[in-house]
């Protein structure tokens, strides 16, 4: 029998030319939480974040909801941004909120690569998709100096 199970679901939509809107859900045997987060495409900064705590372990946990606002303005291209989220939102607020914000942030490039690949396939059905993805990430790494 399974002793512990956690599921994360991250969705990304593009409501306008300069915004990615993420919805993140984390459910496990112990905790249940959701995040709604918008990120600017041009500056990779978190524009807004909201959180909903559904299942938690202590009566103090909901006090972590306002702490989420410290993520606004955070740049997802900044080295160590994920460690900063864990420090500022996780340790001072809720580690599980931080985990979802980090997973949304990690999905930032992938969501854009996925959107760009879909557009490229529309223009060229015979596109070498693997090459497109490899080139996309290589160019992205060069662009951000990674």
């Amino acid at each position, binding site marked *: 029998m*399974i002793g512990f199970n956690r599921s994360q679901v*991250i969705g990304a939509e593009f409501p306008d030319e300069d915004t990615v809107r993420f919805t993140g859900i984390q459910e496990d045997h112990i905790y249940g939480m959701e995040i709604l987060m918008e990120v600017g495409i041009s500056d990779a900064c978190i524009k807004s974040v909201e959180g909903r705590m559904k299942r938690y372990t202590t009566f103090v946990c909901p006090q972590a909801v306002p702490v989420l606002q410290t993520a606004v303005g955070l740049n997802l291209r900044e080295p160590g941004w994920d460690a900063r989220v864990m420090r500022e939102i996780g340790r001072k607020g809720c580690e599980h909120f931080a985990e979802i914000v980090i997973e949304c942030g990690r999905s930032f490039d992938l969501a854009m690569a996925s959107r760009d690949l879909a557009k490229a396939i529309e223009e060229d059905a015979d596109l070498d998709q693997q090459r497109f993805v490899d080139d996309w990430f290589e160019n992205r790494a060069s662009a951000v100096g990674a």
Partner: protein
Amino acid sequence: MILRFLRNKVVEVEPRADGTLFVSWRLTDDLMNIEIELDVETPSLEIAEARARVGRLAPKAVREMAGRIDRVEGVTIGGGLRKIVKGLLTSEGPGSIVADAVLESANAVILHFTRPRIQANEGANVSEEERIARSQAMIKFNPRLIRSCIAYQDDSPLMKGVDLSGGNR
């Protein structure tokens, strides 16, 4: 508005009859699918074996790093794990997803052992005072909880009576 990207991720911990733990971490999204499996010894929590499978359009860095996952074999889940795993694999670029998968699997192992203790604190017959007392006992048992989140900051009601230097105040 429809989604342009969707990621599903599952991590499971399953105790085996021989006392070891089998950890399965799986991810699928629009671009890639990855499966990581760890065999973890108990009570040492040493990673005895690590396997990875990568498919669909995973970026080159992910494919390369998945091929090096056996580097974490012999590593013990415990203090300093993050630094060790990031050092053995990578913390940079898309390939870092493999190290993150190992760390999330290790976190799931810890939560597997935490779950029964949290469950014991639940139930209608447990008063608020008793619940706080049990939380404080948990803090004494696991001091790493101190300042790990808002519930265990110095000014939290759960920390009342807990001596941050070691004993009770």
